[in-house]
Each structure stands twice: as structure tokens, then as C-alpha cells.
């Protein structure tokens, strides 16, 4: 049995590492916070989801601010797709209430496996010479972004409806599991809509905060967010992700990414196994 002080300090260190590794590997904070709390500390799944949502909002808003200012984030695209993610998030949060912790654990494990596979996949392309669809033009979803050499590059995009649908699913998973669903959001923009990779990742990050807030307001009012858990999670994850962003500029993260993805894969299997045995 921990004292409050011990619990806070240990979770603080864990959350710092979650934020650090989450930003170095691009996996995000939420997917690490949940196994940390449930498997590591025996915290109930509901509390863990509440804490993970809080972690997502902190990391997303903290890091999004820089990209928005640099003009990489496509605010209109993000805004438009947030219709889908917020509706999805409300659906997910509504469904989560009726689901047993073990069912959520199994779904979480499966999503974790998918996240690992997608993270290890090779980096998406810049999608040059994409012919923008009429709907994308009508919605003013085109944009520009600064290249490494300082030149401004313009782009258009396509497949608005499929992208929008995948975004809805990303929102559902976010509301259901308390994760940012960044991987699925990037997949929707990069693979379906042919948005340049850099714009996809930063716009996804920008959207995570709003998506998570849409379901977090439900979780807060239903008593899933405990201040004693939220405290070390907010402070730890935020400090970790800010340090990660600084380290990222002068570190080769590829080996770390592979090792860490293997570890998360094992966690995912553990999650599915325990969920099937009904241990949560």
C-alpha cells in the first residue's frame, strides 16, 4: 500500500517517461498512460481512461502551439475534420459507459497492436502533384507549408469523404479508450486524403486536443477523472513531452522506436490476454 506522496512521485516519474517516449517515438502519451496505470498500478480502467484523456490534451495543446505558429498546421482542414472527430468522440464516450472494463481492455490491446504496426511503417510521403478534388476546393482545404530550406510549398488534397469517415472512427476510439488516435488521424490524412506527411502529423496533433476535450467533458462529469491521479499525470506527461521535443532535434530515434514498439506490442498482448481472462 502506497502513501499518497509515494504514489504521486512514482506516477510522476512514469508519466514523465510516458511523455518523453511518446513524443520521441510519435506514439503519443495516452497509449502509454493507460497500461502504466492499469497494469503498473492496478488502477481501474475508468480512472485510467480519464487520466489518459487529460494527458492527451496536455501534450497535444503543448506541442501544437509551435507548429501552428510556424504555419505547418492546416487550421481549416483540422477544423473541418473536427466535426467528424468530436461527433465520434461523443459516440465513443457514450458507448464506453455500457462496456465492461475487460471488453475495453481487449479493444485497447487491438488498437495498440495496430498503432505499433503503423508507427514502424515507413514515413509517409509529401504527396507531390496531387490533383485536388472539387469538394476539397469548395471547402478551401488546400494550403501551404514551409519546407526545410525556407521555401513555401502549396498543396491540394482529395478523397474528402473517406478521410472524414476514418476521422469519425478515430474520434470513436478516442472517446472509448481515452487515447488521441493520432495514428489513425494521420492515416486518414496521409493515405486517404494525400495530405503532405508533415502537415498530416501536425494537423492531427492540433485536432487531438479538441477531440479529447469533447469526450473528457463527459468523463469529468461522470467522475472518471480523479484529481489525485490527474496531478502527476498532467505535470509528468507535459514535462516529458516538452523534453522529448527538445531531444528529438538531435537524436536518432530509430533504434529507440523499434525497441519501444516491441515493448508496447508485448503490453498489448498482455492487455488482450488479461481482458479475455476477465482480470480487469
Amino acid at each position: 500500500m502506497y502513501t499518497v506522496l509515494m504514489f504521486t512521485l512514482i506516477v510522476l516519474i512514469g508519466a514523465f517517461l510516458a511523455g518523453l517516449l511518446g513524443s520521441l517515438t510519435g506514439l503519443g502519451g495516452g497509449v502509454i498512460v493507460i497500461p502504466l496505470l492499469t497494469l503498473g498500478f492496478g488502477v481501474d480502467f475508468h480512472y485510467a481512461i480519464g487520466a489518459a484523456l487529460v494527458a492527451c490534451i496536455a501534450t497535444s495543446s503543448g506541442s501544437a502551439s509551435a507548429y501552428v505558429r510556424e504555419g505547418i498546421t492546416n487550421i481549416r482542414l483540422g477544423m473541418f475534420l473536427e466535426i467528424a472527430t468530436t461527433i465520434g468522440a461523443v459516440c465513443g464516450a457514450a458507448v464506453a459507459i455500457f462496456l465492461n472494463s475487460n471488453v475495453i481492455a481487449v479493444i485497447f490491446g487491438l488498437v495498440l497492436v495496430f498503432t505499433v504496426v503503423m508507427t514502424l511503417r515507413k514515413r509517409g510521403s509529401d504527396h507531390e502533384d496531387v490533383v485536388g478534388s472539387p469538394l476539397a476546393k469548395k471547402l478551401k482545404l488546400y494550403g501551404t507549408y514551409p519546407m526545410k530550406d525556407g521555401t513555401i510549398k502549396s498543396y491540394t488534397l482529395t478523397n474528402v469523404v473517406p478521410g472524414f469517415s476514418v476521422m469519425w472512427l478515430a474520434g470513436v476510439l478516442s472517446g472509448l479508450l481515452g487515447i488521441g488516435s493520432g495514428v489513425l488521424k494521420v492515416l486518414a490524412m496521409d493515405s486517404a486524403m494525400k495530405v503532405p506527411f508533415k502537415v498530416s502529423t501536425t494537423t492531427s496533433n492540433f485536432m487531438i486536443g479538441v477531440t479529447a476535450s469533447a469526450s473528457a467533458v463527459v468523463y469529468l462529469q461522470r467522475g472518471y477523472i480523479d484529481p489525485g491521479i490527474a496531478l502527476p499525470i498532467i505535470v509528468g506527461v507535459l514535462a516529458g513531452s516538452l523534453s522529448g521535443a527538445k531531444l528529438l532535434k538531435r537524436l536518432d530515434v530509430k533504434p529507440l522506436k523499434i525497441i519501444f514498439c516491441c515493448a508496447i506490442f508485448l503490453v498489448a498482448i498482455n492487455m488482450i490476454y488479461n481482458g479475455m481472462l476477465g482480470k480487469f
Partner: protein
Amino acid sequence: MDKIKKTFVDSDIQVFIGKQLRMGVMIACAIAIVGGIYYLCRHGLEATPKYSRFLGEPDLYTTITGIFSGIIALKARCIIQFGVVVLLATPIFRVFFSLIAFMKEKDWMYVFITALVLGVIIFSMTTGVKL
């Protein structure tokens, strides 16, 4: 000319939204730390609440009036929870400021889109009350 003007306003919004997001997170974190230090000073050596079983939180932590009455009564956990509320409000305010920015730009299509997102969040907020 039209195009130049538009990008100018757009980059203005970007700077503002970027600052607002960072400010919100930092303020939320600062409130949580202040409440947290107070919480650890008062309850640090007590046993951890039973997090292994979900009981739900009392109204004190789940409603705005509860949280504020707790802050006035100097309850440490309510101060932390207020930090959480500020954090949740940060992206929601971002949507609200975008709405104003699109209005200033007279981009009515995006005023509508942004209002829709805000509407979904408000719907979620008002129906999320404990059943």
C-alpha cells in the same frame, strides 16, 4: 491583393491560437502544481485512495459549482481539479477563438463549420451530466 490580405489575417490567427494554447496549458499546469503541493502537504502521508475499484467522484469534483465551493473551502483536490478544468477548456476556447477569427474574415462557411464543432462539444457538456 485579396490573396495577400487573406494570408495576413490567417497568420495573425495562427500566432494568436499558438499563444493561447500554450498559455492555457501552462496556467492549467501551474494551478495543478499549486493545488498538488498543498495536497501533498496535507495528505501526503495518508494511504492512497482505492483506485483499483471505480467508485466515481462526488459532486465536489464533477460539477463547476462543486469545484468552486471546494476551492473557497481550500480543498486541495478541488484546486487540482480546477487545473484539469482549465486544461479541458483550453482546446474548447481555441475553437471559440477560431470562430471569432473566421467571422472577422467573413468566411461564413468556416463560421458554420466551427460553430458545428462548438455545438457538438456543448451538447456533450450538457448531456454528460451523471445519469
